[in-house]
């Protein structure tokens, strides 16, 4: 059941570029990445697109399809009408390198800024004991395939280049939440640094990150909001603050 698909693909680099119309054959069951590959093989040999697994597991093939941030390998051709012209552009929050490939180094820089997991100093390999219910919350965040679709769609940086300095983005808010909820992590200032260094307060919980996450991680509800609440515990709640001072004095905690 072959059909023709009309595409408008961004061609260009950081200096110049625009949308180019192509039409290409598409077969039953194919995804957008398949038709991009067909364009590559038959029409535009140097059309750049990033991909790896073609199974929604590596998070390489992030692009915007009809304006929505998505994985090209998990977007069915059948979800578009045959009459429709489908627009495919690179991610629009990051600098473009060529065609559909963007420079996502921002995210690796931010990854470097989140202090690594810090196990208890005396924990010997094989001795960790953790209950399933204690690791489950963090496990949800570790499903992240680093497609950076959430980072791309987050208006804080998508619409405000200048915020990139001070904002780590949803991908790294789940990383912070993962560590803060990790039963064995010993670093105790994650909440403070989330707010003071990573820009958690810039997030206005408008949930676009959650909407686009291909792993269906409930970024806002399960990571960002709980982190915001934890930040309130240590920074903005006078009663909690008082409580912690008293407990410290009495040697509890």
């Amino acid at each position, binding site marked *: 059941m072959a059909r023709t698909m009309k595409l408008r693909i961004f061609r260009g680099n950081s200096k110049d570029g625009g949308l180019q119309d192509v039409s290409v054959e598409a077969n039953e069951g194919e995804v957008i990445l398949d038709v991009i590959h067909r364009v590559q093989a038959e029409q535009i040999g140097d059309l750049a697109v990033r991909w790896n697994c073609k199974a929604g597991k590596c998070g390489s093939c992030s692009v915007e399809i009809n304006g929505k941030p998505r994985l090209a390998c998990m977007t069915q051709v059948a979800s578009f009408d045959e009459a429709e012209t489908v627009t495919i552009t690179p991610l629009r*929050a990051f600098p473009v390198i060529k065609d559909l490939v963007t420079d996502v180094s921002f995210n690796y820089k931010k990854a470097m800024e989140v202090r690594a997991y810090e196990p208890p100093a005396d924990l010997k390999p094989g001795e960790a004991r953790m*209950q399933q219910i204690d690791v489950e919350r963090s496990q949800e965040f570790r499903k992240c395939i680093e497609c950076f679709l959430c980072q791309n769609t987050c208006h804080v940086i998508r*619409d*405000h280049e200048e915020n990139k300095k001070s904002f780590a983005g949803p991908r790294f808010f789940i990383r912070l939440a993962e560590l803060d*909820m990790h*039963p064995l992590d010993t670093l105790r200032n994650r909440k403070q640094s989330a707010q003071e260094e990573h820009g958690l307060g810039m997030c206005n919980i408008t949930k*676009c990150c959650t909407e686009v996450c291909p792993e269906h991680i409930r970024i806002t509800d399960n990571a960002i909001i709980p982190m915001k609440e934890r930040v*309130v515990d240590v920074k903005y709640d006078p009663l909690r603050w008082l409580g912690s001072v008293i407990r410290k004095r009495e040697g509890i905690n």
Partner: protein
Amino acid sequence: MAIDSDTKTSKTGVFSQGRAKLAARTYRTDKWWIQPAITAGVLFLFIVYATYRAFENGKYFAAPLISPFYSPCLAQNCVKGSTSFVGTFFGTWHVFGMTVSPSLFILIFPLAFRMTCYYYRKSYYRSFWMSPPACAVAEPHKKYTGETRAPLIIQNGHRYAFYAGLVLNVFLTIDAVQAFRNAQGQWGHMSVGTLVLTANASFLWLYSASCHTCRHTIGGRLRNFSAHPIRYKLWGWVSVLNHKHQEFAWISLFGVAFADFYVRQVSGGSIRNLYFF
């Protein structure tokens, strides 16, 4: 929208240097503006109605029913029989010679609760402030600082509004219980009004119980669930409700408005509060 051209020339956001040279602020083909438009419309209507009712200072009591907009009624000028059992410690206030509606003393609490609610924040940031109007649709603002500074830093006080909300829920629950009386104050009766107030109180409890702060306080803040099995159970239940917080937010909003409207109609005499027994 006029803002469109503004953004284009200002070369920020998706039009910044280095990003793909694409002219439109979004390439979404779906009707992304419908959702924020509906939200804005409904919220706007509610605000208009609530404001009108808060200042109306009347038609809020029809024994045994009291409108949730006026309960607990803590002023001396509350209509006879409607004053709360806790007392009338606000006395009667006058501003510019006008009597202040007793509603205003208590409405600020649910207002603060809902204004700082994580869900409502999402909806009004999107629909009123358009920050962003919808996902991957460029927002019209040139600068953005989120909730990092005044006034929005106040949002971090949501938990206090939540506590206040709980107190109000208690009062409204008492109102619902009291509605199991007839107009003469005899117990053991039930009317449409009883149902309306009971439903209203229940929705409010669901709304509060599904609140993110509630989820945090009840167990979310713990690091080791296994050391607190009961709180883990509770957290699990609250998490299930929390999943539906958006729904409860709307249902309870309509619930309150409807309860008030019902009491107003009964009190004004335009309908009769039908008794089942």
